[in-house]
């Protein structure tokens, strides 16, 4: 047990941070001590944390740049919302339907990740980034032309418009092209979000520590060396990419079951979103899972906390983002921070012990 604790100290701290954050926030929410804004932000925060952690598998562990992550989130969101809309009157037990929806989102996004990964992962670096960006946009656009309706004859599909579905009068349009899915049951809540974060962490952290994870990291560090010792490059690349996509799908499920109007707009599933997730990962430290969690939380909260600035909000947000990025990662800024903390020995030391983490990946 003791050995287990020492070996997994770092992971336990990561789980611990999530659980402690949950306990604090949940008790504050139950005591009505936090604003409605914060309460409402909890589920999106969980979704973005999962997204950041899952993208870190591709970017940090596999070492490939992906700009299509929002596309996989989109797949998870739409497949699960479709399932929930379809079965809302059939499976009346909320948690059972939602569990199935999560599994469907996970599997569908993972499958799409696998299919896209096969051609895409033959590329490397910038080329791969561009192609994933294109696939992300394709997913969004395909969903935008999809019309699915249901009447007593069963399901109707069309890619033209809602009229082309030829439904009976009583038919119900489930996926309405660009208008997306309206009225998904609101099953997501903070506790479920935290459980999903913990499951994501469990999958990702164990993957890193496993034999497969070491193989994936070997590919990242040196493909030729990895190949020469018999690592199956294609298999492990696909494994990492699919897991990353599947977990993004889970985040999509959480997202789609939190708001009642699900549309694939450039804002929520476009490449801007993919880049946003990449920003979470880069700011938190590539390969650093805990950093991803913290930066996803900080960067999601930031624009909401700046609401007081009204029109200057997005401008200030961008400036703060630049400042944070410089402060965290510019070599000069790192030197400066070292000198500053040297001047405040007590403060720095105390904080370091309190935080007490060892490194989680490469920096």
């Amino acid at each position, binding site marked *: 047990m003791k050995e287990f604790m020492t070996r997994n100290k770092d992971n336990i701290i990561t789980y611990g941070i999530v659980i402690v954050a949950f306990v604090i926030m949940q008790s504050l929410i139950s005591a009505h001590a936090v604003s409605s804004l914060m309460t*409402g932000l909890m589920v999106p925060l969980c979704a973005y944390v999962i997204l950041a952690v899952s993208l870190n598998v591709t970017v940090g562990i596999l070492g490939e740049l992906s700009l299509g992550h929002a596309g996989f989130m989109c797949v998870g969101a739409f497949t699960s919302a479709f399932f929930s809309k379809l079965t809302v009157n059939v499976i009346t037990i909320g948690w059972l339907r939602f569990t199935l929806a999560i599994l469907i989102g996970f599997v569908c996004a993972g499958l799409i990740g696998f299919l896209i990964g096969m051609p895409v992962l033959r590329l490397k670096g910038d080329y791969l980034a561009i192609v994933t960006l294109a696939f992300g946009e394709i997913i969004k656009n395909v969903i935008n032309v999809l019309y699915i309706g249901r009447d007593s004859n069963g399901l109707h599909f069309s890619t033209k418009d809602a009229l082309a579905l030829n439904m009976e009068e009583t038919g119900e349009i489930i996926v309405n092209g660009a*208008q997306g899915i309206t009225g998904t049951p609101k099953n997501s809540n903070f506790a479920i979000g935290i459980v999903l974060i913990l499951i994501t962490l469990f999958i990702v952290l164990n993957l890193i520590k496993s034999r497969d994870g070491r193989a994936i990291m070997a590919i990242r560090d040196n493909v030729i060396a990895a190949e020469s010792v018999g690592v199956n490059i294609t298999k492990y690349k696909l494994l990492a990419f699919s897991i990353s996509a599947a977990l993004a799908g889970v985040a999509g499920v959480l997202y789609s079951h939190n708001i009642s*109007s699900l*549309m694939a707009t450039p804002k929520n599933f476009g490449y801007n979103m993919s880049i946003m997730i990449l920003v979470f990962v880069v700011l938190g430290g590539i390969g650093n899972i805990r950093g991803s969690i913290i930066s996803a939380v900080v960067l999601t909260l930031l624009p909401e906390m700046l*609401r007081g600035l*009204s029109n200057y*909000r997005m401008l200030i947000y961008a400036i703060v983002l630049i400042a944070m990025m410089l402060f965290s990662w510019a070599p000069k800024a790192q030197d400066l921070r070292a000198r500053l*903390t040297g001047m405040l020995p007590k403060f720095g030391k105390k904080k370091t012990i309190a935080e007490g983490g060892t490194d989680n990946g490469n920096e």
Partner: protein
Amino acid sequence: MKRVTRALAVVLSTAMVIASLAGCGGQSTKSNTFKIGGIGPTTGAAAVYGLAVKNGADLAIKEINAAGGINGYQIEYNFQDDELDAEKSVNAYNALKDWGMDILVGSVTSGCCVAVAAESVNDNMFQLTPSGSAVDCIANKNVFQVCFTDPNQGIGSAAYIGDNKLASKVAVIYDSSDVYSSGIYAKFAAEAENQPFEIVAAEAFTSDSKTDFSVQLQKAADNGAELVFLPIYYTEASLILTQAASAGYDFKFFGCDGLDGILGVENFDTSLAEGVMLLTPFAADATDEKTQAFVKAYEEAYGETPNQFAADAYDAVYIIKAAIEKAGAKPNMSVSELGDALEKAMTEITVDGLTGLSMKWTEDGAVNKAPKAMIIKDGNYSLIQ
């Protein structure tokens, strides 16, 4: 070194959490003012609409406050940005709730409005959307609309074209990635089957491909269309008109309220818009006293000509005023009590506004007002009698 980074990250995030928690003192204390909140995109691609609504409502509130408020109570106003994102719109709603909002004017766009309505129904918050035109927006009992619903616009346009025998062959160019546009098109196409004209071409474009319309216009011409129906916004419509003119096509054009504003597009030759017909509740050049006073005040305050969104928002505030007066509501009522009172009052009032005379509401939240058909003549909107 890394530890220091971590330490700072922890300090910063702790500071943020504390700052965010400090910003809320639980439930707001009830004051002697009505707190009206607004939600819409004031940044990003749709900022034009959000800012118009923000300013339109602001103007009305300033007027009402200067004239002594509603039943003697002043109004406080707070408008929040949603970046045209449903999730951000819900965040904005929650932020306004923390501020102590009694009544919501919003959201500006349909998708955001649906998401916010799903939250506001839990608080029974009275919500009046100036421009969220999808039917789903008013699915809940606490939400009412100022603008026409998309189906009404589609059906109204088809009926108008049919009744007035404007054409026998009609082409449609619409934005399939836009809820407003595809919503109108769907109902237009359905209603067209009952009308004495035929849709010979229905060509879509998306927000990613809205600069070149030569293919769509070519198709319309090949199929012998006499009239092109444009259920889209004026920016794209101005391009379509320019490209149709330069290609030498001679279509009649017919649009909905989204075309309002086409004469104000920069570098657009307004003579191309001559004879364009549109079904809109508001035109800034209308000659009635009320519109002129509004346009003048708006131009003075914000330095630009108001569009239909501003007029809808301006009306929304006066509708709220009428409903409050009818219900005899007071600011010290709880949000839910206020919601109940106003929802009842809405079905009983009749309001003369900029966007329609004797507007009435049914319990389902849709507005009942006569659509106005305008034609562009001599570089001005004029009412078709």
